[in-house]
């Protein structure tokens, strides 16, 4: 006899009783609407069920085969960062009432999640200087595609400009979506690590949006206010792709006139987790509120005039507007965004500024230490960087990565994977988790393995 499955509750006598109430003799009869030809008619070819203990052993053994940041000293970044995630984040995200809830369609059952999203939206607006934030997008790539859809409809134009110094994955996703949106994508090359405002302005003619990243993919600070002004001049919506954790020291994009601000939220409160799940940040100026994709929470009152929170402006959304919706999004990344809110609240305004300053200082120290080594050279000398920078290593960077990893250090991302002529360049990321001693070790190892 088959053992009762731990995730089921019905006993044999329950089943008998229920079949009787339905008026059928067997479970098979419940499936009588299925034509014979479309039935499987055999057992699924899957391995036999495992107990919890067995599945733990099996999956934990797979985890053991990965060189994560607890086993290897890692300077990988390129969009996903090893910032510290405090224990309070884990604690809150494991609350079953929040973890196992669906989208808060019924607000009286969901005040916890709704108020948390409202607080998240507030935090994002404070950081970015924007008027409205949605409840999150999938990640830092898809929100850029969302912004293109907003811009297409807001301007009636069919071209989008993206700077080459924007994260390559963001550019790839924008291109994929553009095929469906009917948008042409134009890229503006970088000059010595940043974007030339004149070139950007020429490209922005007739564009719906101009997307740039601050700090950019190379870690360099773009002349963001100038880029925004040039895009605006051309009638294109300026879209800033930002790192939330830079916004304690770097200016809010709303302050220098960006129409939309977006980004990858992972660094603020989520583990790298081999690429997800994370949250995409999407915020905009007031005038775009009714064009925003995704969920938005608003404040209201109940029948006793007490304050409460609901999903709002739903006439933008697919379940009401269907083919005319501002987006097809339903499931977003609420739990991860909640992690972001808990993390940002943990930091507070002082912590956020200190974190930015620590990253700046550590990265400056790393640049200095690396530049001292024979065979290493900072690539975009003269550019101000935040927590990431490019360094030339004198031979193929992928080989350098492999050699350094044999010494227990992952020295960074090989930029040749995305940029022509940069086969010998590494992108090195420094977070507050990398100590000066660890940076010294990076310098020693790179000195050993560089060309």
């Amino acid at each position, binding site marked *: 006899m088959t053992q009762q499955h731990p995730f089921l509750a019905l006993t044999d006598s329950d089943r008998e009783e229920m079949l009787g109430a339905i008026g059928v003799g067997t479970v098979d009869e419940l499936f009588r609407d299925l034509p014979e030809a479309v039935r499987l008619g055999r057992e699924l070819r899957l391995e036999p069920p495992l107990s919890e203990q067995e599945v733990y052993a099996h999956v934990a053994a797979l985890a053991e085969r990965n060189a994560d940041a607890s086993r290897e000293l890692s300077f990988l970044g390129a969009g996903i960062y090893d910032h510290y995630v405090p224990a309070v984040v884990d604690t809150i995200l494991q609350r079953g009432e929040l973890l196992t809830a669906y989208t808060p369609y019924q607000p*009286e059952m969901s005040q916890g999640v709704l108020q948390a999203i409202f607080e998240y939206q507030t935090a994002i607006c404070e950081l970015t200087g924007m008027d409205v934030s949605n409840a999150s997008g999938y990640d830092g790539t898809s929100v850029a595609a969302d912004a293109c859809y907003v811009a297409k409809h807001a301007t009636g134009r069919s071209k989008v400009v993206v700077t080459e110094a924007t994260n390559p994955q963001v550019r790839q996703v924008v291109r994929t979506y553009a095929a469906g949106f009917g948008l042409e994508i134009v890229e503006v090359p970088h000059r010595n690590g940043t974007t030339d405002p004149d070139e950007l302005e020429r490209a922005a003619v007739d564009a719906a949006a101009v997307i740039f990243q601050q700090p950019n993919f190379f870690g360099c600070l773009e002349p963001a206010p100038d880029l925004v002004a040039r895009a605006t001049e051309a009638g294109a919506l300026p879209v800033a792709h930002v790192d939330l954790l830079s916004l304690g020291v770097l200016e809010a994009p709303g302050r220098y006139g960006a129409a939309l601000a977006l980004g990858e939220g992972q660094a603020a409160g989520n583990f790298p987790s081999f690429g997800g799940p994370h949250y995409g940040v999407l915020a905009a100026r007031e005038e775009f509120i009714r064009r925003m994709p995704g969920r938005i929470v608003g404040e209201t009152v109940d029948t006793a005039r007490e304050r409460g929170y609901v999903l709002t402006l739903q006439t933008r959304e697919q379940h009401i507007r269907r083919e005319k919706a501002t987006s097809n999004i339903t499931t977003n990344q609420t739990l991860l965004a909640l992690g972001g809110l808990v993390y940002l609240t943990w930091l507070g305004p002082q912590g956020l500024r200190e974190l930015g300053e620590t990253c700046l200082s550590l990265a400056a120290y790393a640049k200095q230490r690396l530049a001292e080594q024979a065979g290493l050279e900072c690539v975009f000398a003269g550019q101000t960087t935040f927590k990431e920078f490019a360094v030339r290593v004198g031979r193929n960077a992928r080989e350098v990565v492999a050699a350094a990893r044999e010494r227990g250090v992952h020295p960074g991302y090989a930029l040749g994977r995305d940029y022509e002529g940069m086969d010998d360049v590494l992108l090195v990321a420094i977070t507050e988790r990398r100590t000066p001693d660890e940076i010294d070790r990076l310098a020693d190892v790179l000195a050993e393995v560089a060309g």
Partner: protein
Amino acid sequence: MKLIYEKSQAGRRASALPRYENLPSPPELPEELRRSEPPRLAEVPEFELVRHFTELSTRNFGVDTGFYPLGSCTMKYNPRINERLAALPGFARLHPLQDEDGAQGALELMWRLQEILAEVTGLHAVSLQPAAGSQGELTGLLLVRAYFAARGEAEQRRTVVIPDTAHGTNPASVTMAGYELTPVRTDARGNIDVDDLRGKVDEHTAALMLTNPSTVGLFDENIEEIERIFHGVGALMYYDGANLNAVCGISRPGDMGFDIVHINLHKTFSQPHGGGGPGGGPVAVRESLEPFLPVPAVVQQDEGRFGLEYDRPQTIGKVRGFTGPFGVFVRSYAFLRMWGPRLREMSEVAVLNANYVLARLKEAYDLPFDRLCMHEFVLSARTLKREHGCTALDVAKRLMDYSFHPPTIYFPLIVPEALMIEPTETEAKETLDAFCDAMLAIVREAGEEPELLKEAPHHRPVKRLDEVRAAKRPVVKYGFEEHPDAKGEPKVAAAEAPKGV
């Protein structure tokens, strides 16, 4: 309850960051790039932070709290072992750009999950990249575009056919993919109206998007004929996997004739939904569509080695960063390994539970389609509304007083006053009985004391909330000292918007 910002006091903080000695001072930032005013994040000590969010959690309801029969959302138990596994440092702290030889365990897990999903869907190849069901839909339609472009039929194939019972995501995805929508009617038995369909499918048709069983919880009895109609004109068939929980191990989309399927890992395969996400929306396809799948592909190389393949010249590109929401894959993989071939039993019990609740409720509510259902079914509160002025919304709000999460309401759109109920395989008979007792009691209350329904809920942290006011005068963030007074003219929300799915 106060907002975290209303608990803030300047000078407090929850974090202490490491301070490294003897570092160079940070580089001087150009003034125009320097932050001019600090963001007003809350300033609270750590224990205040924990208490605040703990209190918020007590004002929320999840599957862990109780029965959650939200139709089409498959609110089943989320095993706790999944959480422990996803949090292992070997996964949580693994960088997505780690070299392949440093990520063999992660790649093997993804490859194994792909293999399982291919077997469950009856299709050839899987991409795990899409982040949610709706992104899976868009991915699927972009695959359709690429497929026809490669055959030189891009200009010719302009329309996508969708039944009037479809989730709103389907038509929204059609527009985003640059296609035109062709709606098709539902017949009196709840199947696609095949006569209506025949007149609408021709050489201009690119694809069908279908949920089967449909959103009314019925398996389309004409699926073979539908397959002949679409494949007969060279069009493709897309399966919305929202309702896959009904048919695992019983009938596979590939065997029904579908060419592309998306799977909702947060519905069928137990990724907790987190109050709105994360999710996972892998797509599975027939062999002819594999070349167009997103990159990188996760592949098995020789000798049990696993890698990422980027060189796929016909790919649609990328729809999301890296290889998808990996933590979701860990959870769903563990869940699937704990079921194995017994997935069939999972689906059977889901269908048994739904039919049992249907049998107990169908006399008391209107039943638009009188058939055995699959894993969910749709009732209507039409009679309650006509006789007592109590709507589906009122029934939903009153259910809260019985400590049940309401079903999905006002969806699908073809059923007035719809109540869409999906119990899932998780629930015990006692729970189902208690829910049915509550639903029947509410019908009696509607006759005897309708105000009980109209003024519900009575026992939640808030009374009924005014959704109309929220949309009319949107307040979407805290305004600090300028925050508007919460008091205003109350107006009971009557928006018949779908709530669920």
